[in-house]
């Protein structure tokens, strides 16, 4: 007997979390990754990354102060956001976030201040403190999605790792864009060069290689996620079909996987192209768009499948 079912009436279904939440995930990812890259120089002592790390140390708090504004904007009652501060529920990942989003930017600002003062013991202290905080501040967003257990696309243990790896991709890409921008247009600006030493060519090339590694890891996680979705429970396979064949096909397959992962990875392997600045900037922009598509698809496509 063939099962043909048709819904004659059901209550309309809405997508509750959309663009502002995706923007917030995108921004925290960039912040966490820039902070971690900057600690390569200032905590782990890889001296050639110092100039690029300084840019990262500036982006990290800047972006993280903008990010939560989108969250507050998305509340139905934005004026009540202060409830998050004293009505704490330690079961809820959103509550973990309200603590992390308070501590982490403060830590970032201290870190930046001591980089400005060149006080190395204190830089190391706030750097060591900041690495777990940076991982937590972005990893918890993965838990927000993973702990909404009704939604098949989100409810996977891969989600926090997927978010962290794609964060490293987007952070490295933004750092490449900003370094090249600074080296090309702001080389003679004394206001800028006083604080930011020049980023050497070799370092930008090395950031490109680092980007290739992160893209490969990101592809691995995305691939295992979608394959396991496609071949497991009915809910999972439906959401995988929505992403591969349904309305999110262009965003997922073309923007995220094709232009955001495969094409940049191939170009970064070609010896001459991966050393030209225009090509690197184009690739980094494509990668950023791809990660944005990943955030958007993850947030919206997950809620696209009706639950009841």
């Amino acid at each position, binding site marked *: 007997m063939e099962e043909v079912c*048709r819904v004659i009436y059901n209550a309309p279904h809405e997508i509750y979390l959309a663009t502002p939440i995706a923007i917030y995930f995108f921004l925290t990812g960039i912040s966490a990754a820039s902070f971690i890259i900057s600690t390569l120089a200032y905590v782990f002592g890889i001296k050639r990354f110092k100039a690029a790390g300084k840019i990262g140390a500036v982006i990290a708090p800047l972006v993280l102060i903008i990010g939560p504004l989108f969250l507050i904007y998305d509340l*139905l009652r934005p004026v*009540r956001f202060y409830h998050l501060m004293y009505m704490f529920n330690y079961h*809820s990942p959103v509550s973990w976030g309200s603590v992390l989003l308070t501590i982490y930017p403060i830590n970032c600002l201290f870190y930046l201040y001591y980089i400005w003062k060149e006080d190395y013991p204190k830089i190391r202290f706030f750097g060591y403190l900041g690495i777990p905080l940076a991982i937590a501040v972005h990893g918890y967003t993965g838990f927000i999605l993973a702990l909404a*257990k009704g939604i098949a696309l989100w409810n996977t243990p891969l989600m926090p790792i997927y978010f962290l790896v794609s964060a490293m991709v987007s952070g490295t890409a933004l750092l490449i864009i900003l370094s090249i921008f600074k080296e090309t247009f702001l080389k003679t600006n004394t206001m800028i060069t006083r604080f930011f030493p020049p980023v050497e060519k070799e370092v930008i090339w090395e950031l490109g290689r680092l980007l290739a590694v992160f893209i490969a890891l990101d592809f691995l996680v995305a691939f295992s996620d979608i394959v396991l979705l496609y071949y497991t429970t009915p809910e999972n396979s439906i959401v995988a079909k929505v992403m591969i064949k349904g309305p999110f096909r262009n965003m997922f397959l073309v923007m995220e996987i094709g232009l955001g992962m495969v094409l940049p990875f191939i170009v970064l392997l070609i010896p001459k192209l991966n050393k030209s600045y225009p090509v690197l900037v184009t690739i980094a922009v494509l990668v950023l768009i791809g990660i944005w598509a990943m955030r958007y698809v993850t947030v919206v496509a997950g809620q696209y499948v009706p639950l*009841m």
Partner: protein
Amino acid sequence: MADNEKLSRRDMLTLGVITLGSLSFAQFLPTALESKEAQKNKKIRYGMVIDLKKCIGCNACVIACKQENNNPIGYYRTWVKDVERGSYPQVKRGFIPLLCNHCESPICNRNCPVKATYQRPDGLVLIDYDRCIGCKYCMVSCPYNMRFPHPYRRTADKCTFCVHRVDRGLKPACVDACIGKARIFGNLLDPTSEASQLIARQPVHVLKPEQNTKPRVFFLNLDYIMVEANKNDFEYMKYSHRKVFQEMNINESQMKDNYQFLKGKCGADRTYNYKLKVNIDKVGAL
């Protein structure tokens, strides 16, 4: 308009008398103002059994809920899903009334960052509308999609099992309205109640048992294929609430006027403030 809104002295006096009267009345409510321990000793756990063979899809429960709770147009605390199964010679039509399951371990409660959602000792999962910030996380957390953003109160909202009626010894409005007696409400811990006897004697099912939320709305004669029907049917997905009512030429301000007109006149609005009864900080945590 402003003159009308000012309270006259007589109005104030009437209001005072009503307030005092309702406060003294609250003392005699069956479960009101009792401690968690006292309520636990009484052994009350409300739940519902829905016999799908008796449901004829008349939607009386939906209308009763709307009348009782003043749900904004386009949003439902309970609705009846209508499904057709099979093809021509062998066709079956089924109705599945859906409402908040008032789970034993509710995920909405666990995920609420401000503990606005709490569980009473008698099992009702309720929202404190003064605490709720409207982060919408509970709406995506609920595996049954029973929550919605209230467009005028600007908080999350869902079925309360008509707590204001239940606390006075009445049944929820949808249960009273059900003409086929498909919905049976009662204390699941009382072995003499109809609901607990049905659960004890008949094979019952809950929705999505794999989610481990332990729902307390049980179904008799549930067809899982019908429940899961819409999973592959994305046609109706393009209809959001607003689009449906735009097509019916009802605009946003008309819907708001409707809500404001009925505000304070519905059963749920007229009754006492039930959330005063429990200390949310103690009850809300799992």
